[in-house]
């Protein structure tokens, strides 16, 4: 049991390294190569003038492939980490911020890699992978007690409901992270016409597709959360801060979905709303630090 928990942590450490290396490669791939060109000009006076010119070129495909490979490695280690912890605890690791965040790291990696395959573009990784690495760093900074596997307080003991409710939340956040990355790249591609970035249309569509997974998942989170609250506390909606933060996030994505059918909004403005919406996701995720409430147990 102890050993399994430690093993799980080692796998997480390996995943962190793989994700960090992958993030570097993705960033290098997205930025492209800086090419310095030196031109020597002869002047009338018989002297020469040297001019330097820097330009960006697409990076080699090799580094992109390598980034993807490393990301898959990270995912594989993270799967192992979660598996060990599941065996050690006899349940999916979804109950404190350490476990929740580890599962998020895994799902964000998987969701991102799937989108990479579907759309055949890699540049998004330059945003999603650093986010994942940031999350790994956050996990490392959490108090070490959270790495232990603890029994659950009675209110958290409804396994199927809790599992679906929490894993849907993680899935939603993971897809929202991908949508966020698409929005950032959209704004960049739309503004600067970087030739090797995916077309704005593709990025707009990718962001939308991600939300079409995240929004229903988030709806399920709210619904199952209410069902659970109803079973545990006798009321399906208590205006608890974590609930309302999730509702806030859901509403902002609702705004986003509407703006897509508005002339003059689809595109840049929708992308900006996606950025705001992702800020709401981060707020909901880390909200426990800001407000108390029923979701505060489980060691933050």
């Amino acid at each position, binding site marked *: 049991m102890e050993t399994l928990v430690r093993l799980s942590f080692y796998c997480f450490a390996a995943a962190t390294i793989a994700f960090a290396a992958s993030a570097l490669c993705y960033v290098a791939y997205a930025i492209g190569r800086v090419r310095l060109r030196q031109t020597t000009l002869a002047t009338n006076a018989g002297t020469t003038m040297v001019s330097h010119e820097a330009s960006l070129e697409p990076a080699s495909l090799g580094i992109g492939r390598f980034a993807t490979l490393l990301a898959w490695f990270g995912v594989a280690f993270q799967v192992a980490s979660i598996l060990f912890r599941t065996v050690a605890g006899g349940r999916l690791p979804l109950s404190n911020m350490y476990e929740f965040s580890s599962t998020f790291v895994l799902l964000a990696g998987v969701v991102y890699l799937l989108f990479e395959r579907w759309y055949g573009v890699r540049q998004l990784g330059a945003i999603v992978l650093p986010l994942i690495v940031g999350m790994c760093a956050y996990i490392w900074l959490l108090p070490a007690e959270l790495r232990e596997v603890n029994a659950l307080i009675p209110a958290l003991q409804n396994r199927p409901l809790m599992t679906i409710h929490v894993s849907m939340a993680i899935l939603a956040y993971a897809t929202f992270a991908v949508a966020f990355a698409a929005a950032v790249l959209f704004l960049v591609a739309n503004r600067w016409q970087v030739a090797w970035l995916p077309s704005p249309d593709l990025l707009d569509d990718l962001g939308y597709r991600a939300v079409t997974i995240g929004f229903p998942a988030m709806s399920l989170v709210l619904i199952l959360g209410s069902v659970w609250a109803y079973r545990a506390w006798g009321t399906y909606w208590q205006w608890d801060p974590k609930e309302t933060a999730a509702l806030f996030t859901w509403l902002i994505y609702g705004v986003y979905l509407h703006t897509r059918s508005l002339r003059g909004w689809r595109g840049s403005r929708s992308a900006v709303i996606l950025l705001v919406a992702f800020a709401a996701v981060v707020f909901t995720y880390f*909200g426990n630090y800001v407000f108390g409430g029923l979701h505060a147990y489980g060691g933050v």
Partner: protein
Amino acid sequence: MTHASVQQRTLQSRALADIVVDRIWRFFCSVRAAVVEIAILALLVLVGTLRGSSVPQAIADTFPVTAPIVDRWYAWDVYRSLPFAGILTLLSVAIAVCTINRAPGIWQAIAHPSVGTTHGFLRNAETSASFAASIPPHAFAGQLGTALRSKRYRVLTEERNGEVHLYADRWRFSRLATFPFHLALIMILAGGIVGAAWGFRENEFYIPEGSVRELGHGTGLHVRLDDFSEVYREDGTALAYRSDITLMRDGQPVQSGSMTVNNPLTFGDIVFYQSGFGQAVALKIEDSAGQVLFDDALPLGPFQSRLNPDSPAARIDLLPAGVALSVVAPDENPANAPELDTLQLRPGQMFFMIRPLGADRPIAEPIGATVSQGDSIQLGDLTLTFVRERRFSVLQVARNPGIPLFIAASVLLIGGLAITFYFPHRRVRGIVSTTTDGSVARLAPIARRDWSAKRVFERLALDIGRQLGIGPELHVNEPASALTGSRQSVRPSL
């Protein structure tokens, strides 16, 4: 006033009323307005969320100038405020009006879509495909139709000026899914209103082991706690606890069962939840005439005694005797402040104290005494017997007639979203015209700035081409958003 001028004025005011109604109607139908309304709702929810935060308090502490504003902000109960109710009402009306407004158009697009199109539309489409064949347009349109149908598209054709116009679509009924989804939002609100108006919720229903309590709220039910049990962890925190109860109506048991946290007991539409538990004391109180004033268990916990604020304690008013009785239990938690404990009770003991309820009462001063389990004492006119220690359970009891609405709404919401998102209405238009060596068909999707829909169409075009044995020519127009608009035609190899 002549007859004509009266008529004129009625016409004018009718026109004005029409304009106003039309304006209001259009405001409610506007997605732009809906966006603003949802954004305002989101903002209010955010304000409510931040109410639990200590950040504004910290601001007020640092900058005392802001204190009055911060205090008022904390005092504002957003969710019960008028603006909040207003925006919810506005959204509900907007959804209803919007539904009524959109339904006929959407139905028209599903049942009787316009088939005819123009060469301009096909030429300017962001993606399109042309197919050439050596048979007349009619026959070729027939072949295309068969191929499209085999891909589960519905195909409609129409002849115009010797050309065949073609319309094909798939998953047309998914256009309707937006209605259950939006109506579900209203139903959830309606469920909340129904629950608040016709339901009840008892948050702290205290019931000691072996006792019977009346539920009230017009249910006619009594609840008896037959047994209470609990399991602790090593560190002393509760792992699980369970109450076994019997529900009685007119003195007859109607249902028995047990409940734990997360596993409530249901009777009809009334739900009983395990919420908490604590220590109780079984007491018997008699007056000097031998009349029994109290013979039941008293939950210790909701009351704090000055004699030891950390101990479980209770207080009841014995109106016939004109006194209030307080009971204090031993303080068994070593972590509590021992210096506040003026009683120093040992396990198995209780402290009883009575004090007068009014000024002109037989006992002028509070009197109290320590009693051991099973013993009786005399306090004033009363004989008190500490029968035994018991436990009490705290239940939550709720009846919420809004739940069925809520469940139905949840299904509609998720189902509606899933259909809208995962089975989007795909549409293709086309014209088959005559050429010197047969006919040519040009097809284009209705997919402006919709990358996925364009990919789906391109795949469809290739599939159809493969079926008919014709290599289609794909035409791509970069969408207008890109500054470097380019046109290219590619002939993919099959």
